[in-house]
């Protein structure tokens, strides 16, 4: 239980340090795009892979679109209360 509490405190405190982690994350993201300038695929699978930052743009747009489209569908016609099929 002791390790449970210590680990719990450690993970719980991560909240307070959120601004710090945010800066670290931005730094890592920037660093990776910088690396992307030098490390490129030897045999690109997709046309855009030559362009540094292609996958960064792909991921952000992909994530935003997935959420927008799916949440939109859920809010308009897919989302139902849990007992939906039990009613007549």
């Amino acid at each position, binding site marked *: 239980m002791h390790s449970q509490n210590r680990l719990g405190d450690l993970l719980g405190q991560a909240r307070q340090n959120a601004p710090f982690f945010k800066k670290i*994350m931005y730094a890592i*993201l920037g660093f990776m795009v910088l690396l992307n300038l030098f490390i490129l695929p030897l045999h690109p699978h*997709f046309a855009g892979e030559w362009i540094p930052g292609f996958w960064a*743009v792909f991921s952000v747009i992909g*994530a935003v679109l997935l959420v927008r489209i799916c949440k939109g569908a859920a809010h308009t016609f897919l*989302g139902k209360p849990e007992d939906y099929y039990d009613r007549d």
Partner: protein
Amino acid sequence: MIGTDFLHPAVWFIAMAAILPLLPGDRWRRLLPVPAVLAILSVLSVKSGTYGEIHYLGQTLTLGRVDTLATVFAHVFAIQALIGFIYSMHLTDKAQHVAASLYVAGGFGCVFAGDYLTLFMFWELMSVASTFLIWLNRRKDSTAAGFRYFMFHTLGGLFLLGGMLIRYKVVGTFAFTPTGPDMARWYDYLILLGFCVNAALVPLHAWLPDAYPRATITGAVFMSAFTTKTAVYVLARGFSGFEVLAVGGTIMAVYGVCYACIENNARRILSYHIVSQVGYMVAGIGIATPLTMNGACAHAYAHIIYKGLLFMTTGAVLYAAGTARLNELGGLVRRLPWVFVLYMVAAVSISGMPLFSGFVSKTMVIAGAAEAHRTWLALGLELASVGTFLSVGLKLPYFAFYAKPDDMTRSLTPVPGNMYVAMGIGAFLCFFIGVYPQFLYAMLPFEAHYVPYTAWHVLQISILLGFTGYGFYLMVQRLKPEPGFNMDFEFFYIMFGRLFLRLCRYPFALVDTWWSAVYRTGGLRGLLAWAKGSSVFDRVVIDGVVDGTAGRVRSLGHAAAGTQTGRLQTYITGAVLLFLAATGLVATLMLLN
């Protein structure tokens, strides 16, 4: 039924299912992992070959076709069975253990089956046993979901049965051998359809997110491993190269993550991720280069371990907190920190983060798809990777463990130690396969060279995951889980059922009532009139004829009797008259001649 050199792993589990109900007390729980350990030994010691041929129903059944393809699946089945039974060691409900044992036995039986008949028998064993893993959750919605699950799998089983019987009529054998897409006939497609039901190919997939979240906590851990992966195995064995699988698999991969983004129940999110991850495997089998085939097998292996871990950790949350609904969870990280850490190991594995198992298997399928110039399919699978990390790597843990202020007051049931042990083994394997992929690659059945750890691969996936994280940060308010669920194709299953019920209840019942009325008024009266007519006919005509004949015979008899006076002179007179008449007749005839 066992060959000399091969102890079929299913035997251990069937034996446990038979013995378990007879054991008293509850110390038998320590024995639960034993069959799985024996199964691991069986799989490790077996050499490729054919074992255990028996004659039944006038056929030769091959229970043990062992080759590299079967072995890689059997290997991970045995490991996951061990993890699953350790995870469920705290349970005193014997019925659940018996159902799980028979289910696992069915999985092994399918993997080693050399012919369709054997395959079908174990296929159905899995279907029945897994239904009990849902029912034994003993809730009203579990009962209903179990029935839907069972009916849909029975339908799938019937496709398989119909296909294989017709195939037998035409081809003359039940042998389970590969079918090329060019040579496939319609009965082969019927078999394929049966397999696709279990592989949860969209739109035949809705049974999965419908049933798995309603199964028992431990049952879902088993089910996440065996049903769909057995289907992946039989597809890899029999139907590689089918275009419908290449496209269908990619659709599955994207479709699953779309729903995972919007669902609220954690176990339902994970169920959609089974659809998505199995999509990678199905696509790999459809593209069918040696690299994608190996990728499908490797991904099945890695997937069984990390998906089991995901279901175990969310199961632990459900066990402790009593709910798996994300809107009712949150702020639990201080209370269940190890569950959170173990969950994250599985989450980064499924997302394909370097150093974890998904990275060495998933990228194989994607690279194979791209190298086979299936650019759109590869791009779809990359998009699914984005959605995977978004929903199961970020959304689920964020809303379950953080999101709200620390929840120090909610009463939590303590998570048993055996659950932690099982989760620990799963997490270790996720990491081990990730850093030592040769362990997995050495088992793969096809010849293909692939190096996962190149600078570009690592950078590409890191960028992908990192910027997905940024996308999550932008969208986190929109991703907030809401109570309820999202309709899927189960809507059509349920509507079809209701339509059929209405058809029985209204039109059929209406016709029935109407027909009864017609019968009562027209039919019954007609029948009565007819009966009356028959009776009159009988009395007047039949009896008339019969009675008439009798009457004549009687009056003739009377007349004949009248001639019998009993006086001798009358008889002599009669005889003389008769003699004269005869003589006269003869004389006349002679004269005429």
